[in-house]
């Protein structure tokens, strides 16, 4: 009898920890409560992919309520994965998406956009990865959601997935209802 009780208790503990940990995994860890959240974006500048003479800087973020900076590359397969979400996001009226093309070749990048569509209103070239470091990025793909005041609201390391997409949409829609 005592044995059965012991067994039962241990069994429940194991199942319980399974439940808790899987819940823990479900908290989206990509949604980094990073130190940078709530901080204003630092300045950056990158030449535009379409015209070398134009520089994409922090000032390129204007006239919208929200901005997304997405760091991507044509060679990065997770970028392909997240691309459809970026395409969907590009239809949001309150949002402007700026791409930072990371350590890539120009013609590959343009081919990529021709094939999968271009969600970006502007694209800056980050040939040696320095711009991304300025943006506080860890690698590709990475997505930074900014407010009108260019304050970092959220940072997504790795490809955007459905949950991330919903999170972004929710933030934007909440704001719509306020205005």
């Amino acid at each position, binding site marked *: 009898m005592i*044995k059965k009780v*012991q067994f039962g208790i241990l069994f429940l503990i194991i199942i319980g920890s399974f439940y*808790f*940990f899987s819940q823990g995994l479900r908290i989206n860890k990509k949604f980094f409560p990073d130190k940078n959240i709530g901080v204003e974006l630092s300045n950056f500048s990158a030449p535009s992919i379409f015209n070398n003479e134009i520089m994409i800087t922090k000032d390129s973020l204007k006239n919208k309520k929200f901005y997304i900076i997405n760091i991507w590359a044509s060679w990065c397969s997770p970028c392909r994965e997240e691309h459809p979400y970026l395409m969907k996001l590009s239809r949001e009226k309150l949002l402007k998406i700026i791409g930072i093309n990371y350590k890539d070749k120009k013609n590959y990048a343009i081919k990529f956009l021709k094939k999968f569509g271009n969600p970006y209103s502007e694209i800056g070239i980050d040939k040696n990865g320095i711009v991304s470091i300025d943006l506080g990025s860890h*690698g590709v793909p990475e997505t930074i959601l900014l407010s009108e005041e260019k304050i970092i609201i959220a940072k997504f390391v790795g490809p955007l997935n459905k949950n991330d997409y919903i999170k972004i949409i929710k933030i934007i829609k909440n704001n719509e209802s306020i205005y």
Partner: protein
Amino acid sequence: MIFGELGYYSLIFSILFSILLFFFIYQDYFIKDNKVSTKVYSFCFLQFFTIIISFFSLVFSFLLSDFSIVAVFENSHSSKPIFYKFSGTWGNHEGSLLLWVMVLSSFLFLFLLNSKKNPKKYRLLTIFFQNILVVGFLIFIIKTSNPFEKLIPIPKEGLGLNPILQDPALAIHPPILYVGYVGSSIIFSSALASMIVNFVSKIWAQSIKIWVLISWIFLTLGIMLGSIWAYYELGWGGFWFWDPVENVSLMPWFALTALLHSIIILARRNVFQSWTIILSIITFTLSMNGTFLVRSGILNSIHTFANDPERGIFILTFLIFLSLLSLVIFFAYQPQKKEDFFFNFTSKEMGIAINNWFMIFFLSAVLIGTIYPILLEIINGKKISVGPPYYNFILAPFLIPFLIIMTISTKVDWIRSNINQKKKELLFLLIFSFLFILIINYYSQKISIINLLIFFSSLFLIFGLSKDFFDFFKNKKKINLSQTVSHFGFGLLILSIAICGIFSKETDVNLKVGESIKLDNYELIFNDLSMKEDKNFKKIIGTFNLVDINGKTFHFSPELRIYNQPPIVTSEANIQTNFFKDKYIVMNNISGSDYYNIRFQEKPFMVWIWISGFLIGLGGFLSIALKRNSID
């Protein structure tokens, strides 16, 4: 470029061989003879061989900078020194798992070769359980973290290994720690097997003890190296941060140390069977738990490689499966008491039993400190961090009886009490340590009573064992050298940590070139700054002079390193070590100004922490080298 394919396909083959191995084990299990069939042998070998090939294919891909492989591209660079190309193999999630599986499989193979004296069914079952682990991890690798994943188009250059990982101590830290972690797998497998075939006995304990020792030595050294790396490389001047990832390596160590002691008793008498089995299971579960917590990204820490929930779910499910499996087996085949055995209150057994419980207490305290923040975040979304004050507060007081019992247990005999003979010696030690404390207290009155008692109890242990050494070298008395060395190391470790923790001094100032500042006992002068190019980084070297009261000058040159791939700035502390104290200077740039942030630290007895750590490990090594089967 062929290595990518070679590695991938031999990995696929190894899964195939492992699955076939299950079948041959099953077939052989019902054949009534005492020989394991050659088929089992050959498939164990094939599994081992294909995994080795796969691992070395990855190593060669790294050495040849084959950037068509994602893992190489993301973690290497053609201009990297060859040593770091090599260590880059396991400096990432995929490669480190391949290393993990390689160690698992090699332990399986080694066990098979070295267990010929044991019953056949027990050997087969051990291999069976170990093979479950191998297959589980192989599937995990192929499914979620294929190290040979291809990249098209092939990039010309890699992204580089994180510069803070470019350190000799850290390059060898993962493999050594892994041997420790994974070593406990064979103990786990054989514990399950021995329960089923009713083999939990003296003989089992004697045969498995060597595996416990090996993984314990490696785990000890692995933790040590990680700590050394943190001290020299992270530039915070600390060596243990109670970071969750450090804790997950410490928890199996507690369990393994308890196991090491209880298995020594089991190897002598048929007692503590269930307890030993439980510890074997706990040790491995904690090692797996460590992998889960680190790899799943459920913890945010410098050690986290990739945050991928899919990986987390897989390891978690596998871990839970193994826990349930061992739970069921434990309750179905719980080892029966073979002989009733009583030992005196003042015997080694009693001491070991009590300290086993202390170990479990330390383990639980660390476990709670690590897990509780995660649970809290899940329940109410709050983030808390459990830091050193919690651990110091909860662990320190219990170290005192722990050390005292440890001293007494090393002095008394097995079973029978001979405390009367030792009374004089212990009393003498007690008084001697007490006098020492009075002296310490006289010179610095600020020490709290708990810290004084820690000094006292660790000195008690150190003096006690010093007497044993004295007997050994002077009077040629027979002692257990390995036990004495390890426990002496432990006493020294606690003492040095306490001294270092209490008497450390730290100054934090901003200086620019040409300025100087007066400190308590020193004057610190910032002389010069210079630039230098190295193979894959630039460095800014600051030159400092430190003048003490007697006018003696020390030169320091801490560095800031600017790596080009990936572009990261790290600070290299300049540490000057002697037997009494470490002097530690680290500088950081303050952007947009000529000032540099300078941190100067004095850490007394720092080097003794490393020395004692290695002594602890050395004791284990001596125990194998001297081929002692028992501890007394």
